[in-house]
């Protein structure tokens, strides 16, 4: 991998169609910076995108990439990484994609702990379908499909990740460029499943969870005495519904990723031109 990769090398020549001011611009820039900073090259990077505004990211970035079906980005990323561990795999999606239709996969991806990063652009609303409640929307958030609010508590993705045995759980804010890029970089560098929930405000449909709201309410864990390796501290903060945190909530520094546990190091794309050597043993087994 070349060391002179700049973050703009991860940018495609397609202009984003996100609304002006969308949080996803900052989220994406941080992802590109983090990929470049960690020494990756677009030809050795694989981005898997979900469906929704966030899902467009694969088009605006330059790398090997696939834009999947709704909610299934994580299994795709898992397959890519296991088939070729040399690749840097990053999965990107939104709160609807990851915590609603894809919630099942989220929990299992967390517990599987494949060495990849998962960046969720959480704007607490469905943007591309023009403003319906998402699983992280507030209980009283009025939308076209929930005129009196969802009347059910929001999903706490950090709590799900912790309960499922997450080994890297972080929360970020897309407009805080340096801090955000640094958190994504730490997720990439983590040995295992690096999960970052990114507050990525929707300026068109969400007038509650705004840039100002997050600026005023986010507590940066770096400015506290939080110890990310202390699971009890992480639990306490994650379950504290009265605060929004930014930073690494929890990291297991002894994390052993799935591929390592299963001894997967080979690039599976390379196969011989006929049956593998010794394949007749497979037949003889049936004597």
């Amino acid at each position, binding site marked *: 991998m070349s060391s002179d990769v700049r973050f703009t090398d991860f940018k*495609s*020549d*397609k202009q984003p169609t996100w609304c002006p001011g969308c949080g996803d611009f900052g989220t994406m820039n941080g992802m590109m910076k983090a990929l470049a900073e960690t020494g990756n090259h*677009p*030809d*050795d*990077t*694989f981005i*898997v995108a979900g469906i929704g505004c966030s899902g*467009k990211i*694969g*088009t605006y970035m*330059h*790398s*090997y*990439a*696939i*834009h*999947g*079906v709704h*909610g*299934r980005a994580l*299994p*795709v*990323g*898992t*397959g*890519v*990484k*296991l*088939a*070729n561990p*040399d*690749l840097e795999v990053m999965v990107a999606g939104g709160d609807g994609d990851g915590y609603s239709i894809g919630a*099942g*996969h989220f*929990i*299992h991806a967390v517990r599987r702990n494949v060495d990849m990063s998962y960046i969720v652009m959480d704007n607490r609303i469905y943007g591309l379908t023009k403003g319906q409640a998402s699983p992280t929307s507030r209980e009283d958030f009025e939308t076209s499909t929930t005129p009196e609010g969802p009347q059910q508590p929001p999903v706490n993705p950090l709590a799900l990740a912790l309960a499922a045995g997450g080994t890297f759980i972080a929360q970020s804010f897309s407009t805080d460029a340096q801090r955000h890029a640094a958190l994504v970089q730490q997720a990439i560098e983590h040995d295992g499943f690096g999960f970052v929930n990114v507050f990525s405000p929707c300026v068109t449909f969400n007038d509650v969870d705004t840039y100002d709201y997050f600026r005023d309410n986010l507590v940066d864990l770096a400015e506290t005495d939080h110890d990310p390796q202390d699971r009890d501290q992480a639990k306490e903060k994650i379950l504290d519904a009265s605060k929004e945190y930014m930073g690494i909530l929890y990291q297991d520094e002894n994390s052993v990723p799935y591929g390592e546990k*299963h*001894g*997967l190091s*080979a*690039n*599976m*794309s390379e*196969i*011989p*031109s*006929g*049956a*593998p050597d010794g*394949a*007749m043993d*497979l*037949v*003889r087994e*049936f*004597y």
Partner: protein
Amino acid sequence: MPADFNWAIGGEAGDGIDSTGKIFAQALSRAGRHVFTSKDFASRIRGGYTAYKVRTGVDPVQSVVDRLDVLIALTPRTIDENLDELHEGSVIVYDGERTTMQDVEIPEGMIGLDVPLKGLAEEAGGAIMRNVVALGAACAVADFPIENLDSALQKRFGGKGQAIVDNNKEAARKGKEYVEDEYDHDFDYDLETTDNDYVLLNGDEAIGMGAIAAGCRFYSGYPITPATDVMEYLTGRIEQYGGHVVQAEDELSAINMALGAARAGARSMTATSGPGIDLMAETFGLVATSETPLVICDVMRSGPSTGMPTKQEQGDLNMALYGGHGEIPRFVLAPTSVSECFWKTVEAFNLAEQYNTPVYLLSDLALAVTEQTFPPEAFDMDAVEIDRGKLVDEDTIGEWQNEKGQFRAHALTDDGISPRAAPGTTGGAHMSTGLEHDELGRRTEDTGMRVEQVDKRNRKVETARETEDWSPREFGDPDSSNLVISWGSNEGAMEEAIALLDDEGIDVRFLSVPYLFPRPDLSEDVAAAENVLVIECNANGQFADLIEHDTLTRVDRLNKYDGVRFKADELAEEIKTALSTEVKA
């Protein structure tokens, strides 16, 4: 004396029916006899009627028949369930000391052998070996040298230590000697042995073996009857060849993981049964539109919905051909026998990569639970060829880049086939998506590009039609005016039915079709025949509809959808009736 010998063991699930049947089948196979096994089981772990049937001959056997020569009955129900297949002189081995078997009545004309299975097993070292005692008794009845059982017992119990193996051998001998001592009777069977070496395996195992042979390195699946054996086979074996199996959280995940691995350049597969295919349908569209090579195996069972999970049906043909929203180019292959499960799997991987297209492999329960003997050369690994299609590398990628150096992963080509670059290939970075896209793989709503991409994806099917051999497999009398057509697993039973019909002076030409899409044009064959009968294990005649569609000719149908596969003798009878009705009309 019949040329083939039919044996069964039946009882409750949990009685060790499966492993006992398998031991006997292996003993026969190792003795150079051909074997065809079938299972009758219920969807439960314990209890419920279960049977394992073994048909064996010196000549190849490839179906089940309505006849049982020796039945090991562990429960009274075993006799009731098989009454139709027992005949005068059939031997029923049972343990009269077993509480439930004390009042068993042996049907008139049949021979009941009351053997204290449990008692003799205890003498040999443990009641658990009572089924092995029964196997020994069966050896005596069938005049089958018991030494042949020893190596099968060694294979089955070798891992548990020599003492266990020896106890089992002893148990078998006690069963044999008991019958010889207590019943002074010539049972009129003589299971001769040969020097031939056969292998014995089922369709799921053949699919798994084919996958490894074809270079499959990644498999993700979710357990479902009757496809699970594919995953169980690959687990523990594919690793030896550099691959990996993931048991996913559901079928949605399974196909998406397989898609991811395929995008990473690996030969990749998932297998499931009908309900799982339904769940995979959305991603199937993505696989096709993103032009990802992927093998998706559907081991069909009786549907719809949960249907009859442990019973046979060929009901998913329409789903395989048409499933998914929008119009999706695909290939649909259906192996016609256990050995074809191997070869069609190899072919499926090649087609998938040659055409960057998903390939459905339609197997079914009858193939999955059938173990059949073959000479090992039937799986000649030297004959396996791998064609990775238009997989570019760093030297050739330049041909597929535009003036800006961008890789045209969805290039519009005359043959409809775009190039493929495995991630990591320098200069190949590109986006792919289920959205309609341009040559670079980027979303477009341009009307012209939409039409060009759709035409391109369809064009590869046309290329395949012209390039590959989609011929049916042909059997019987090529000049007969009676044409029988079927697809998938009916081939073996039909082949034997042809012989039975021939004995009665009825000639039949039989076309067994392993390719459902693209498929052979049978217009001339249908036109040349006076009677055309399409046989399949479903109620509506999905394949018959296709034949009518293709040939613009009405055909007769023979459908079976009671959950049981066609049996050779039953099939012969049905065909005879159908033909005579036809002739009368």
